[in-house]
Structures are given as C-alpha cells and as structure tokens.
C-alpha cells in the first residue's frame, strides 16, 4: 500500500541548535489512522505519556531531544542508534544513566547535527526490533520513510539552505 505523507516542522520542539521535523500521514485509502491529523511523533507522545511503567524512559528521550541535543550539544551522530535505514533514540547505553532497562524506542532520522526527523516508536521487548510486536511496525515504517526522505534529498525535493543548517522544501507529498 502506498502511503502519502507531508513533512511538518515541530515548532514547539525546534531550537536554535536543532530543527525537528516529523511526518503527517495522508493515506491514499480510507483509514481512521489519522483522524486527528497529528504527526507520527505526536502519536508517539500520545501513546506513552502518563504511563508510569515507562515514565523514566519516556522522559529520558524528551530530555535528550529538548535539552541535551536541542539546547546543549546538537544532534551529534554518536547520540543515535543505527537501525538499518533509520536511527533511534535514546542514545547508546554508554550515554545513559540509571540501572534500569532503556527499552522505549523513538525511531527517527538524523540528517545532520541540526536536522532530525522524529517518527513513532514503542517499548522494545525483543533483541531485534523486527521481532518485537510493539515496535516492528514503527521500525519498518521509519525505514521506509527514511529511504523516501533520503531520496527526496537526492532528487532536490528537499534542499539544504544556504547555511547548511536546515532544510528547505516546497509543499510536496512524500510517498513510500
């Protein structure tokens, strides 16, 4: 099934150091998937906000987005886990504090120190995301979207601005 989507800049998360974007799905078939017209990242928030069992993990990811990368250090490559065609947060274990499991995953695509796309995610319960019922859909979706975004950069549908610190694009439908 082909899915159409649009890029949305996340104004309330974007900082002077990092421009955050997400994707709003516009399915080409009738679907109740996106009744609220929200982005994938907002869907991630709605799924996990207020769940006490993963509050620490959830807050850790937000902390990295808003403060450690957004305010302090930028979206350095070393802070992202490699997930085939896409990336994931939280950062690799050496950057994380606390003895507990850091099983919540937010799939994303880091384009540079200053541009990051945020998608959906979930609590990973198996060693490989592909095998986890909670995250495998978000994992595969992130991979497809990442390929489409990378292709859009190659095709010139998305361009780097003059400073090289942000992307520019006219409204266009991404499909994957």
């Amino acid at each position: 099934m082909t899915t159409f989507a649009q890029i949305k800049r996340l104004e309330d998360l974007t900082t002077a150091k990092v421009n955050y974007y997400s994707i709003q799905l516009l399915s080409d078939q009738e679907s109740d998937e996106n009744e609220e017209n929200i982005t994938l990242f907002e869907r991630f928030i709605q799924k996990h906000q207020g769940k006490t069992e993963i509050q620490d993990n959830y807050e850790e990811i937000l902390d990295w987005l808003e403060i450690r990368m957004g305010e302090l250090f930028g979206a350095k490559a070393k802070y992202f886990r490699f997930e085939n065609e896409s990336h994931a947060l939280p950062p690799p274990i050496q950057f994380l504090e606390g003895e507990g499991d850091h099983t919540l995953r937010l799939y994303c695509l880091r384009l540079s120190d200053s541009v990051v796309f945020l998608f959906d995610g979930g609590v990973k319960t198996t060693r490989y995301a592909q095998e986890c019922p909670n995250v495998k859909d978000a994992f595969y979706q992130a991979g497809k979207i990442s390929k489409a975004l990378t292709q859009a950069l190659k095709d010139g549908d998305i361009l780097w601005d003059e400073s090289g610190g942000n992307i520019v694009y006219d409204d266009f439908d991404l499909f994957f």
Partner: protein
Amino acid sequence: MSNKSIISGALASIRPETRIFTRKLAYIVMRVEQLMAAKGWTQKDLAQAMGKQESEISKWLNTPHNLTLKSIAKLEAALGEEIVVIPGISPQGQPTAYPDLMTLNNAQLNEAPQEYQSPGSKS
C-alpha cells in the same frame, strides 16, 4: 489537538529534577573544560595530574553522569579551582579552604545568601 499543545504538554511534563540534573552535568563539564583550557591542559595532562588513565578522564567528560561528588572533588583538587560552588559558604576559588563545619554556626548554615535563588524560583 494541535501540534502545539501535544508537544508543549509533553515538554511541560518533564520533572524539574530531570532538567536540573541534565543542565548541571553539562555546566560541570563546561567548567572543567574551561579550567583545563586556562591551564593549557589536554585530557592527558589532567589525567597525569590526577594519576589516572586518560580514558577515565575522557569517560567522565563524555558521559558525565558517571561523575560522583568524589570525582568532582578530585578534579577540583587537580585543577586548583572550584567546579561546584555552594552559595554563601564556598571559599573564593580555593577548593581546599572550605571552613570546618564545626566552626560554622547554625545561622550561617541556614541563611540563604541574598544573591542566591533556588532553581525554579522567579526573579
């Protein structure tokens, strides 16, 4: 629900202690790097001054959540300058000259210095 309220609401829900911890760690690392630069020290120089492996210093600075108060004290001793300052009590720039707690009276310990404001208080 708009983009604005979902994300803003999520960020507003981050606990204050998380923000304080993250920022303080970052400022501690910045302060250490500032003091090293003032001395013209590399991580290797700092490691040598502390009798430690360079890898341990690198780990402290790149993953600062591993820093303990003890390791901060060791850094202060090696660098000869304060990294973490306690308002109203810390001696000016001399980490080894903390007053003996027994000599401080209760008024000194309990009094909040004029210029200090706790995190989250409005100015």
